[in-house]
């Protein structure tokens, strides 16, 4: 099995074409000092690799790896995070991991059913991005959405109940594992078909821009769309890259490239496996980052989010990451090479952050242990809550099909069907 995809660990900045014929395509102005990570100006190349840019107007820019940036910052004695930030990140990742582990247990005990896709191993991506967002920013995900929902602020109880199919679930038990929505936290789902969430995310970003430019409101909300490597071969992805760049929508496209789409290796499915390169083809920066390192992801995310908030448009971020479990709980996961799994297990993002926190004296072992314990209890409590919650009654069957239930129409007796007393019982004929 080919594990030959050695990630290049490069970031590249892709300047827009020199000839700006289209007046809508403004050149990206990179702030001189706090430059985009991949920018070639302020960073000196350590061990750079040259990439051939067909459309680069300057000489091929030296490309700098993100880990060099991190090392550089460390060496001038400034850390990437404060203690508080570090603990927030750690807690969020532990929450994601514990929750997913509990899901697996509950699934095998027959508490949840259907397709359940777990996020173990990819926590750095969710935490790295979502912890930078405000409550009014939007997140759009795929079927692997439990941890995105949790990072965005949806309570563990609500997510667990939803998985158990109870009324107290975030979607009243009507959505399930693949449809985590929260209006309060602006979690816009949760989509079962890959790619179908990306246009929705583009729409949310459009809304943001519309509010600012048409309704003249103070709106700086950004949208982050998460999806996988398999989705990057889907038309909707490209259509949305085009529209987002065209209208400079405040959106960040985050590719969680875990190298596998169920049993299809990314290399077997994609003509050019370097997904970040597809950004510049549409006129937006494409960045590749080590998705097993939450700090690196966070640095890239900061830049991308700031770009979006400033109205400079979208960014495509490819996070190289890995899922420690199978595609779903029904996947025997036999195709992936043990060596590959071991290699990534050694790069467990939680272990990496823990090491960073301790080595840089940001936290003590005991503090981290207490966070772990707290989260364990939280997740246990979520399970108890979900267990104790009632299942939906028959009356819920016909609710929420329409926002305006008049949509069920007029019955033979002349009344709207939703007025039929049996409607609220869920037994009306509609």
């Amino acid at each position, binding site marked *: 099995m080919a594990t030959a995809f050695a990630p290049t660990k490069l970031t590249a900045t892709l300047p827009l074409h020199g000839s700006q014929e289209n007046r809508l395509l403004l050149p990206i102005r990179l702030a001189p000092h706090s430059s985009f990570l991949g920018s070639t100006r302020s960073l000196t190349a350590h061990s750079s690799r040259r990439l051939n840019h067909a459309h680069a107007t300057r000489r091929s820019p030296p490309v700098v790896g993100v880990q060099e940036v991190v090392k550089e910052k460390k060496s001038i004695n400034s850390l990437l995070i404060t203690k508080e930030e570090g603990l927030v990140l750690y807690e969020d990742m532990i929450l994601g991991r514990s929750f997913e582990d509990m899901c697996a247990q509950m699934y095998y005990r027959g508490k949840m059913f259907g397709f359940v896709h777990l996020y173990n191993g990819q926590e750095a991506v969710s935490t790295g991005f979502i912890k930078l967002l405000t409550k009014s920013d939007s997140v759009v995900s795929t079927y692997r959405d439990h941890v995105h929902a949790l990072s965005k602020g949806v309570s563990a109880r609500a997510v667990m109940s939803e998985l158990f199919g109870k009324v107290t679930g975030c979607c009243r038990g009507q959505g399930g594992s693949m449809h985590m929505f929260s209006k309060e936290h602006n979690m816009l789902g949760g989509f079962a078909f890959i790619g179908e969430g990306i246009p929705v995310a583009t*729409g949310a970003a459009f*809304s943001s821009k*519309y509010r600012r430019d*048409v*309704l003249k409101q103070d709106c700086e909300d950004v949208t982050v769309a998460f999806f996988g490597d398999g989705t990057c071969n889907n038309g909707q992805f490209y259509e949305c890259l085009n529209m987002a760049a065209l209208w400079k929508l405040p959106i960040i496209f985050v590719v969680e490239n875990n190298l596998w789409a169920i049993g299809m290796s990314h290399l077997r499915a994609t003509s050019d496996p370097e997904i970040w390169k597809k950004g510049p083809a549409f006129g937006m920066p494409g960045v590749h980052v080590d998705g097993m390192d939450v700090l690196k992801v966070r640095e890239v995310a900061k830049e991308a989010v700031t770009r979006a908030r400033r109205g400079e448009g979208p960014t495509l971020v490819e996070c190289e990451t890995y899922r420690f479990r199978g595609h779903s709980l029904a996947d025997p996961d036999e195709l992936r090479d043990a060596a590959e799994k071991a290699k990534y297990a050694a790069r467990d993002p939680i272990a990496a952050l823990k090491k960073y926190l301790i080595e840089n004296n940001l936290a003590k072992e005991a503090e981290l242990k207490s966070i772990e314990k707290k989260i364990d209890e939280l997740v246990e409590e979520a399970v108890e809550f979900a267990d104790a919650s009632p299942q939906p009654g028959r009356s819920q069957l016909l609710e929420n099909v329409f926002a305006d239930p008049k949509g069920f*129409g007029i019955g033979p007796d*002349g009344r709207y069907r939703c007025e039929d007393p049996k409607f609220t019982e869920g037994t009306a004929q509609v």
Partner: protein
Amino acid sequence: MSAILQGAGAGAAAALSPFNSIDSNKLVAHSRSSLSVRSKRYIVAGSDEGTNKSFGSSSLIARRSQPLMIPNAVAATKADTASSSTPSKSGHELLLFEALQEGLEEEMDRDPHVCVMGEDVGHYGGSYKVTKGLADKFGDLRVLDTPICENAFTGMGIGAAMTGLRPVIEGMNMGFLLLAFNQISNNCGMLHYTSGGQFTIPVVIRGPGGVGRQLGAEHSQRLESYFQSIPGIQMVACSTPYNAKGLMKAAIRSENPVILFEHVLLYNLKESIPDEEYICNLEEAEMVRPGEHITILTYSRMRYHAMQAAKTLVNKGYDPEVIDIRSLKPFDLHTIGNSVKKTHRVLIVEECMRTGGIGASLTAAINENFHDYLDAPVMCLSSQDVPTPYAGTLEEWTVVQPAQIVTAVEQLCQ
């Protein structure tokens, strides 16, 4: 309303041409006097709900207190817009596409969250001129020219709707929306439910469909049959300038996702519509011609074929009742049921394919609900299960023509 019917008659007489089809350009509104005669009749029929103020949407109450006869969206609105015995005062004449534009523009003026997205809707003014002038007035963001990516821009409209806007998404031809089926089915229809009611999708998806003049198979599709099973959406079909404007406005104001089917050949219909603001009820059918002998259920362009056939039938001594069902999903079983209970015979005339079309569903619904009232099996005239051919003669034979309707009525009324 009546103007159109009279116009249809005139058009029918003029169009008993070799191809026996209606030249929609000939359908012109007649003088106001004929309008008043008809409307008086309607108003008398609907006078029981004289105090119905809200154009049918609160007809919930009116319906209960009302005795048997058909609560008539047309009567309701006419009773409201005009005093009970005089015709609606000035009114203005326009073509159907202008009526759509007027409705859209009024809603965009009323609510700044209403926006339009689609191909060539902005600078080009819309392929059928429905959005003409709107980009100049409202700007390029509110009337958004999209690239050619139906699936993505429909999804974008849905995402915008979830976050507070009210997009009107145009499919340049309804057939193109086949590319957006994923978004329409999964997100538009189902997302309100799968999110447990948290997000509403108040979009309007509209565009022209139906068989035109030798447009070829792919541009002559009837998507209402494909979309009808999607839970969570409403489908309406407009057929006159009056209901086009009314349905457009109602669809935009609705919190549900609504698909508004227009017809390529009906855009140039002319009619006089009220100056006052009005909306049509999304869930109601429209009584086109009351009658006693047989119920003809139809929608969109076939309404005109049915009315043309009605003219012939009247001359032969029949009295057909023609109902434009307008609401393709859900069906207005009250209006339809009342008619069946009166006439006991049903003929459905539609442009959908025979297999799995709106007529097929309607037949099932009528059999299920009104079986006892039928004196004859429900007959359904649909288009042939054939890709619409380019050749004019062949194309004409795929679609239901007035002569076939006449024959069918004669057969049913034996």
